[in-house]
């Protein structure tokens, strides 16, 4: 399992979150994905110990939990930054300059695409289409969507969040 030292930090609090959420789905088949989604929403990502606890509570092998968590791009096995800048790389955004946005943000924050800044403030991610194609190129930070961006504007927006 690709668990690194910082991805194995099950606290009692996190395990309690698992117990609480898993209890709600007890006896309902097909609940593994919603359980993972809700646990991640509370914990921020899916540490190895948390996945093991989910396996125990949901009554499935840990390999299956890890298999599902690593299959879907929504699930994080490593902690994300306080802010997550998701640059849309759908077709429309691509032809309207999404690669330049990613380059600008990575240069601004000093990270590679998909990485988190050492201070834990920002994660830069490329995502598949967010469905706002007519406002391309688009970036989302948390639930806010910014459209018709230039690399310069993207940089300025990120700076604002950093404050």
């Amino acid at each position, binding site marked *: 399992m690709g668990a690194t030292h910082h991805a194995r930090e099950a606290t009692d609090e996190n395990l309690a979150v698992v117990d609480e959420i898993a209890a709600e789905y007890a006896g309902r*088949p*097909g*609940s*593994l*994905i*919603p359980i*993972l*989604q809700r646990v991640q929403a509370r914990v921020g990502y899916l540490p190895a110990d948390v996945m093991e606890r989910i396996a125990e509570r949901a009554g499935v092998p840990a390999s*299956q939990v890890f*298999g*599902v968590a690593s*299959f*879907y*791009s*929504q*699930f994080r096995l490593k902690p994300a930054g306080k802010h997550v800048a998701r640059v849309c*790389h*759908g*077709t*429309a*955004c*691509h*032809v*309207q300059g999404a690669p*330049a946005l990613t*380059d*600008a943000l990575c*240069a*601004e924050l000093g990270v590679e695409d998909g990485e988190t800044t050492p201070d834990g403030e920002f994660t830069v991610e490329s*995502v*598949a*289409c*967010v*469905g*706002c*194609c*007519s*406002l*391309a190129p*688009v970036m989302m930070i948390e*639930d806010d*969507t*910014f*459209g018709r961006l*230039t*690399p*310069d504007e993207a940089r300025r927006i990120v700076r604002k969040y950093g404050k």
Partner: protein
Amino acid sequence: MAETGTLAQVTVGLSSCGIAAGAADVMSAFESEIAARNLDVRLRRTGCVGMCYSEPIVDVDLPGEGRQTYGGITAEQVGRIVEEHLVGGTPVEEWLVRAEDRELPDEAYYSRQVRLVLRNAGTIDPESIDEYIEAGGYAALEKALTSMTPNDVIAVMKESGLRGRGGAGFPTGVKWDLAKKSPGEKKYVIVNADEGDPGAFMDRSILEGDPHSVLEGLAIAGFAIGADEGYFYVRAEYPLAVKRLEIAIADARERGFIGDGLFGTDFSFDVHVKEGAGAFVCGEETALMASIEGRRGMPRIRPPYPAVEGLWRKPSNINNVETYANVPWIIANGPEAYAAYGTETSKGTKVFALAGKIARGGLVEVPMGIGLREVIDEVGGGVPGDHEFKAVQLGGPSGGCIPREHFDIAVDYESLVKTGAIMGSGGMVVMDDTTCMVDIARFFLNFTQDESCGKCTFCRVGTKRMLEVLERICEGEGREGDIELLEELGDKIVSSSLCGLGQSAPNPVLTTLRYFRDEYEAHINEKRCPAHACKPLLTYTIDPEACTGCTLCDKVCPVGAVSGERKGIHTIDQELCTKCDACRAACKFDAVIVE
């Protein structure tokens, strides 16, 4: 329909695109202006009207005056609209994009459209079941349940000629019939709202703008095939669609449109919403069902088809959002009315998402069989600026690029397939002379190889190998024989993959090779990107004749590659330059040359 008559009404379009463009601020500005002036005005929200290029959009209806539509409105402009239009009674003419009583330029966007699926989009409040009912909602469900048999409903669907709008185009009535005839007490109906094609946002807009229409269509399908339970499988990236859908389901349950013994019959129907977790392959029906069951979304061999063995191994029917949204209209208006639109084999209408290098990007619904040129040029307003239309990409990663020479074809299932493209789910991304077709092929392959679930070797490994070849071509390292290698890999992936993802993954490469082979050859043989898009093949220099030494390029360069004194000629250090294009975009004197 929303009540009109005596009260002035202001409607703000609050869909994801509208909100991204600032519509929520516009809404609050209206709230405070109206409150501050103590005006008797009805302020409402609606979904996406389709004019995404004009967001945020505001409609003002004065009693007896007809609807006037403002486009591109900011919160700062709200004061003047309230003052002059709502209070003074005179519209702010220069901000209007559309008016019911006279023809404004954007009328062209609407005049070719036939809005059956989008019948309520942009007019009703998607969070109000009352407005849906006022617009005729749930009458079709009542009609089906109280005056038709399941076989009647299936016969109507067959007669309407509706074909699946998710891309494959399988006749909907036939699909329902198969699920109905499958033996079994327990059956399921499923909405595929895992709209994953980059460049497609039809389903998001329908769910955000008119969620009840899909729910009603699903309930009718449940009645027809004998399913008492339905699932919506929605992309996780669509939080607003999920929220509005959940509101719609709760309201419908409260009013007795969902639940036990509907309309006094013995038909009961319940629904669940499942959020996807970010896997493109889950748009494939067997993968989607695996995902609902909580497993990795990997396709399996068909047959058995879902109609025989689907969710939890029970007979199941899966259609996409747009297909279901058509159903209430067809039941209410009759199959003949629907089949009156379209061509011999492609009936009705199709919703397209226009995006890319197009003047009026947004959501349009046109009759099947309309000319591709009409959609792009007349409805969409063509390519903006001085650029030339090069191609339109249809069908996302499974589709292909249609070049200028096929611009006059009709938009129907059969005609599109002849070009090597497909109808797909309805994304149309327009490309101009600044778009490199090799880069586009690489873009799609990068997407599909990333999204391949890994089950079939040719899809898993073959797409990776194709991507590597495309990458080296774009980086100026292309070799003789690369084109032939791409064709060979493409053919083998098509024939050796289990599901639609693999079978269609090479399409973007194969169609660009078919129509834009010269661009591939220019990259490989001359190390040149004709569209000036592939960075490693470009050089940025400053024309000493044109440079005025304004220092702007130096200021915008993120890597410090530009140097030069104020009022002196600037130069670019080729070692440092990342070809980010910032200097060229900033230069006011066209002094930055790209070759």
